[in-house]
């Protein structure tokens, strides 16, 4: 007859079945969540930008717009904002051109191994600054005239960034310099597009309080460029 005193807690089949269930079902939940997230982080389209539809990851043509990073009351943290049109390297890029440029930039970022010194979206190595919002960094306010002065030209933000990327060790910002990685003028343009695009990604408020002084923060200021 039944043995009522036997304990399930020391039974291997119980734990084996439980382990199989939990593993299998957690995997199914992860796949479900992945489908949901993939839908939300797929790149938007040029039409979204034109119609003012907010996407977590906007279309490559976001490089044609002014980008900001502002405190959102609703979200409780800073979010990227997309402003009026702004020429990028002196022109407006068609969807195809912008996509090609971003493709070149992303490829270059991998081929030059940016991630083993810098962090991108906070992931990578910790030897050099995070590049998530590098396009918006107020450090450029002093770097642009400095680089422009050295090559005797008035430069836009993207031109100064491209020049820096091609000859980084000429414009040191710290004893720890960025090495010359043989980045060509074409690749530098792509990289700047990649960085500008990355700054428009909605990162749920990371980095928090980006490069603001306390006063700027209180005033709800922005480092838009």
């Amino acid at each position, binding site marked *: 007859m039944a043995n009522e005193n036997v304990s399930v807690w020391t039974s291997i089949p119980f734990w084996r079945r439980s382990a199989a269930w939990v593993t299998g079902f957690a995997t199914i939940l992860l796949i479900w969540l992945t489908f949901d997230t993939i839908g*939300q982080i797929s790149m938007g389209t040029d039409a979204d930008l034109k119609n003012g539809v907010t996407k977590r990851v906007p279309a490559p043509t976001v490089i044609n717009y002014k980008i900001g990073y502002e405190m959102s009351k609703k979200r409780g943290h800073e979010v990227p904002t997309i402003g009026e049109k702004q020429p990028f390297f002196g022109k407006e890029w068609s969807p195809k051109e912008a996509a090609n440029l971003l493709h070149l930039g992303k490829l270059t970022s991998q081929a030059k191994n940016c991630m083993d010194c810098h962090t991108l979206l906070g992931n990578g190595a910790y030897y050099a600054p995070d590049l998530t919002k590098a396009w918006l960094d107020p450090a450029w306010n002093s770097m642009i005239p400095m680089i422009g002065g050295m090559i005797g030209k008035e430069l836009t933000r993207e031109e100064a960034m491209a020049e820096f990327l091609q000859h980084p060790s000429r414009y040191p910002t710290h004893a720890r310099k960025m090495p010359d990685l043989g980045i060509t003028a074409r690749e530098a343009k792509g990289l700047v597009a990649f960085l500008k695009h990355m700054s428009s990604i909605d990162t749920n408020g990371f980095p928090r309080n980006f490069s603001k002084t306390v006063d700027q923060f209180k005033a709800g200021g922005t480092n838009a460029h």
Partner: protein
Amino acid sequence: MIEPFTDVVPSFFGMLNQGPLTLTIFLHTIIILPMFWIYKQEKEKLNKK
């Protein structure tokens, strides 16, 4: 208690996220609950031996 929806795109998980810990309680519960059933079955099996 129930917070307004703030995320960019509405979704099932985003809505569950509006209540206090409702999303995580939901996920933990549906993972753990069937273990009670596994427990009962195993108990029956052991009792029959």
